């Protein structure tokens, strides 16, 4: 057996590699960012090119939570519960200014100032709302994170 034909890896890295090409997002939209998310799933931008088009109606079947929109204090416990219902490994994208920091509504009595106050976030996508290209870039950042098997995710933020 020639040495060049042997690939040495770990099970985790191999699985991560496979996962990175078929992230299954949870069907979950909160505000106008969700409209851009829908556009991303449509024919014009077509995230099925990357293998991410399988939006699951149940958090039990998803491994990617895209927080697409404003998280209010009233919605926050439900977002947290959705995250907790997802099976591991799971990834979170904070899409848009609102999910990142509260956005234009940060000085409001009803809006949470960033979804990372309640759940861990892997990738942040700025924009109000971010264009579909930006969301695709964010999804590819998740892929990159899985490929590099990054323990420290901070440099992807």
């Amino acid at each position, binding site marked *: 057996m020639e040495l060049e034909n042997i690939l040495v890896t770990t099970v985790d890295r191999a699985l991560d590699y496979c996962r990175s090409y078929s992230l299954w997002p949870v069907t979950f939209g909160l505000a106008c960012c969700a409209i851009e998310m829908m556009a991303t799933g449509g024919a014009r931008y077509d995230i099925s090119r990357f293998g991410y088009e399988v939006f699951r109606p149940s958090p039990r079947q998803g491994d990617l939570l895209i927080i697409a929109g404003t998280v209010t*204090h*009233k919605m*926050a416990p439900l977002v947290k519960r959705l995250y907790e219902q997802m099976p591991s490994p799971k990834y979170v994208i904070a899409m848009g200014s609102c999910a990142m920091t509260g956005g234009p509504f940060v*000085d*409001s*009595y*009803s809006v*949470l*100032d960033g979804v990372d*106050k*309640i759940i861990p976030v892997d990738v942040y996508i700025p924009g109000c709302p971010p264009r579909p290209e930006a969301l695709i870039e964010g999804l590819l950042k998740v892929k990159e994170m899985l490929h590099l098997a990054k323990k420290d995710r901070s440099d992807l933020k």
Partner: protein
Amino acid sequence: MTITELFNLLVPVYNDKLTLSTDSNSLIITPDQLIALLTTLKTHHEFALLTLLTAVDQPDHYQMVYQLMSIKSADVVSVHVHVNKSTLKAPSIVSLWSAANVQEREVYDMFGIIFDGHPHLTRILNPDDYTEFPLRKTFILQSVDRQRLS
């Protein structure tokens, strides 16, 4: 019919309990006569449509605002009630307009005004465990995040 004409028509019935606002744009009535006045306006003066129910935080009282409209003449009348800031009591007008139900709940949610006779006075927009009344002038914004994320 102008508000002043309407006021002159109604003032013999309510005497000093009914006053005209300084800008002559609205009627001010005491809380105990509110239901009676609104019933009269609805049944005898064709103001059958409740277009607005809200509140304003004034320096020495909360001001309830009821805006009624006549479908027939397109006239609009607004009726104000001054709510005491310590008792916070106002009469509920759900018996006159069932549409007032959710609007009174919203006013309760934002100002903490208690509506006597309301069938289901609970929070409607804010979370059920919210303790603040955010549209009051005394409301401090930062208190919410501190409290809810602690």
